[in-house]
Every structure is written in C-alpha cells, then in structure tokens.
C-alpha cells in the first residue's frame, strides 16, 4: 500500500544486488585470470583477463558510490546507512585484494615454482569458496532466504583452512634453496592471497553483527 513512498529504498536494494552480481563477476574473472596464469603463464590472454577483473572492480566502485549517494539522500535511518556503508567498504576490500594479487603477478613478472603450484591453487580455491559463501550470506541477509549464523561458522572454518595453507606454503618457500629475494617476493604474494579469505571472514562477521544489532 505504501510502496510509492519507499521507491528510493527499493532502488538502493536493487543497486546492492547489482553490486553483489558485479562482485561475483569480478571473482569469476579473477579465477579465470589465475587459472590462465597457472596453465599458460603471463601473456596476452592473461593480460586481458586481468584488465577485465580491473574493469569489474572499477564498476564496483561506481556502484558503491551510487548506493552511498542514494542512501544519503534521505533513504534509510542514519544507523542503517552507516551499517550498509561500512559493509560495502568492507566488501570492496575483497575486490581490492583480487586486483592487488593480479597486479603483483603482472607487474613483478612473478613465475611460480612448480613445487608450490598445487598448494597455491588449493589456497586460491578455498579463498574463493570463502568469497562465494560471503556473497551468499550477504544476499541471505538482504533477502532473508536463510539463516546467516551457520554461514558465519562455515566461512570461519574456511578462513582457518586458508591460514593453515598460507603457513604451509610460506614454510615450503623458506625450506627451498630459492634466491632470498624471490623468497620474500613469493611470501608477499602468498600473504596478499591470504588477505582475501581474511577479509571475507571480516565481512561475514560484520553481517552477523549488523543482524544481531537489529534484534531488540
């Protein structure tokens, strides 16, 4: 009955879902770029996929700005605006980490040694699974399709698995007889990949807190 009064709220909600779709696309391109890099190394195809990931990351920034601009034009109560603003900023850091990993590989012309490829692929797979779960959790929060609490613990266990893999890979790197400069370079790359699951876990906890804050 009062739908006409809350047009802007619906528009913000639609923009948030667009933002989540865009996050999914950025993640897909990141995954494709990493697969291409592992399979064929740096080259034209990989550069194209990195550029595509960057394009979707920029699109995410535009969408985030649109959401914030609309939200602060008398939509939602101030507390909710603040919560959504902080949530979007937090999700945005995941995209920044995707981009940072790819730019590090591309800019520093990194070549992954064979003895860590399998572990690194597994590390990236679990990290991306974490992101999938976070997108599902954020959607569930906005659509009320499922309970978000169980997802928090699943994401947390994935993040722990990522931490374990990160430590294992770093240990393998420093056990090897690689050049010390390369060791530091790989360690930095692994830490940068580790940031993805750490940030996903952070977003998941933020969603959980926003949810329980609204219980009275």
């Amino acid at each position, binding site marked *: 009955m009062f739908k006409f009064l809350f047009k802007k*709220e619906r528009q913000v909600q639609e923009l948030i879902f667009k933002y989540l779709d865009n996050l999914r696309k950025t993640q897909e391109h990141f995954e494709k770029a990493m697969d291409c890099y592992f399979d064929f190394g740096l080259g034209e195809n990989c550069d194209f996929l990195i550029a595509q990931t960057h394009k979707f990351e920029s699109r995410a920034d535009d969408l985030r700005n649109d959401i914030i601009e609309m939200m602060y034009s*008398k939509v939602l109560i*101030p507390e*909710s605006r603040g919560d959504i603003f902080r949530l979007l900023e937090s999700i945005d850091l995941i995209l920044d980490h995707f981009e940072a990993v790819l730019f590090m590989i591309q800019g520093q012309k990194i070549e992954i040694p064979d003895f860590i490829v399998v572990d690194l692929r597994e590390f990236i797979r679990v990290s991306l699974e974490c992101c999938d779960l976070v997108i599902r959790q954020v959607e569930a929060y906005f659509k009320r399709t499922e309970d978000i609490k169980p997802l928090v613990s699943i994401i947390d266990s994935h993040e722990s698995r990522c931490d374990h893999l990160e430590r294992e890979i770093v240990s393998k790197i420093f056990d090897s007889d690689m050049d010390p400069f390369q060791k530091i370079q790989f360690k930095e790359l692994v830490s940068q990949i580790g940031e993805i699951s750490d940030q996903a876990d952070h977003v998941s906890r933020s969603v959980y807190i926003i949810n329980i804050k609204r219980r*009275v």
Partner: protein
Amino acid sequence: MTSLLGGIFLGWSLGANDAANVFGTAVSSRMIKFWTAAILASCFVLAGALLEGQSGIETLKGLTRFTYNQAIIASIAAACTVTIMTLIGLPVSTSQAVVGAILGVGILNRQLNFAGLGKVVVCWVGTPVGGMVLAIIVYKLLAAIANSMNLNIFQSDILLRLCLIIAGSYGAYALGANNVANVTAVFVGAGMLSTSAAALLGGLSIGLGILTFSKKVMETVGQKLVRLDPFSALAVVLAQAVTVHIYALVGVPVSTSQAVIGAVLGVGIIKGVNTIRRRTLVNIFLAWFITPFVASVFALSIDFATHLRYIPG
C-alpha cells in the same frame, strides 16, 4: 480579537516547542521531511483540539471565575512566564504556567476550586511516572512483535519510518487534545468564546506555531532522542503520546516534555543504561513549583499594574 492575542501567542509558542516531542526524531534523522511532519502535526493537532480538547478546557475554566480582564491577564501572565523562563534557561511547562496564572486570578477572586487543582497537581506528578511505565510496556510489546518478524534491513527501516509517522501523528493528536486548554480555556471561563470556538482557535494557533517556528527545535530536541536508537525513540514517542492522550481524556493539560523525559527514563531502565541526567529530573521537580509560582506572581502584578491610577499631586 486583540484581547485573544495572549492566548494565540501562547498557542504559537506551544506549537513551536512541543512539536519536537512528537516529530523531532523522524525529522532530525531526516527520515521524513520537515514540511511533511509540520503539515501532519498541525492537521492532527487541530483534529485533537476539536475532537477531544473540550474536557481539558472544562477543567481549567472550572478552577476559578474569570472576568473579561482577568482572562486576558491570565493568558498574558502565562505567555510572559513561558517566554521569560525560556530566555533565562529555567525549566518551564506551558500547562504549569497556565495553571499558575489561573491560580493568581483565583487568589484575586478569593475563590479557588481546590478539588480541581488537586486533580491537576496529581496529574503533573503522574505525567513523567506514566510516561516511564508506558515506555516499559510499549518497548516490551514492540520488541516482541519486531523480533517475531523476519525482516531485512530495508523492511525494518520502512516499518520503523511508518511507525514513527503514525506515532508522531498520534502524538500530535494527543498534544492538540491535551494542550489546547492551556491556550484558550481562560477565555471560555470569561465567556468570551464558546468551548468549540476555543478549541478551534487554540488548535489553529498551535498549528501555526508548528508551521512557522518548530523546525530548529525539532532538529535540536529530536537529536537528543535519536541518540537513544531509532527503536527506543519510537517507543518513547508512542509512550509519550499515549500518556498525554490519557490525560486529555481525564481532562488535565500536562507537559509533553515531562512525559518524554519519563519515557526516556523507562527505556533506560529496560536497557539498563542511565538515559537521563539527575539534573533533568531536578528540573522537572523545580518546574512543578517555580513555574506556577512565577505565573501567579505575574498575574497578580499585571492585575495590580492595570489598577494603578495617576493622581496628580
């Protein structure tokens, strides 16, 4: 018409100040536009005054007998009390100022309805207490309903905004029904206006105050309520509206600000936090005594001044 100016001014200042108690939260948090709130508030104030304002008018006019001049003196004394005490920063309530001024007139007439006066004073004490008790009940009830609904952030926000608009409109209705007596009851007592004309004039002058001068007060007073959290603010506005409406039915004009302070205290009790400073409570207590005393002194002084005659030496 000029003889009614004191009452119109009182109504105008009442509207400018007290609208913040009903729509301050929604406006200061920019949930609804000022003009939407102001128009809704003035319409509902007028409706409240016309439909349920008579009972309070009957109580106040029954406190003493009024002559034409005494009605004007009472309204000017109340208006001066509210203005001066606000300017020097002392706690003040329009309802208490009007009763104080009537008390002054009663002293002049040597005729006071002590039973009616007792009822009014009991209701003054009952206002913050009632606000507090109702806030506890309203908060628990609303919390149970809100927690049973599986709403997302947008749905709960929309519901909260709708509830604030409805509670604000109801609060404005209760304000009109309860406080219109403060504005024009003395003129009914003097036979200058009929009860319904007094309700209409009072409602219109309160509405005028809301439309012309309530924006700043809504923004500043509202922010104090918003600091609670939107849900608690809704419970406060609703509890305040119900409290003031109950006293409108009883027929005693009370202070909406004191009802709000009681309600904020009630929410604080539920949440286990200290929402009200001791100083605010002391101010309410002081207002019960200082405001009627100052208004009586004003009424007596104005009456004395109007009877002074120049005798050439």
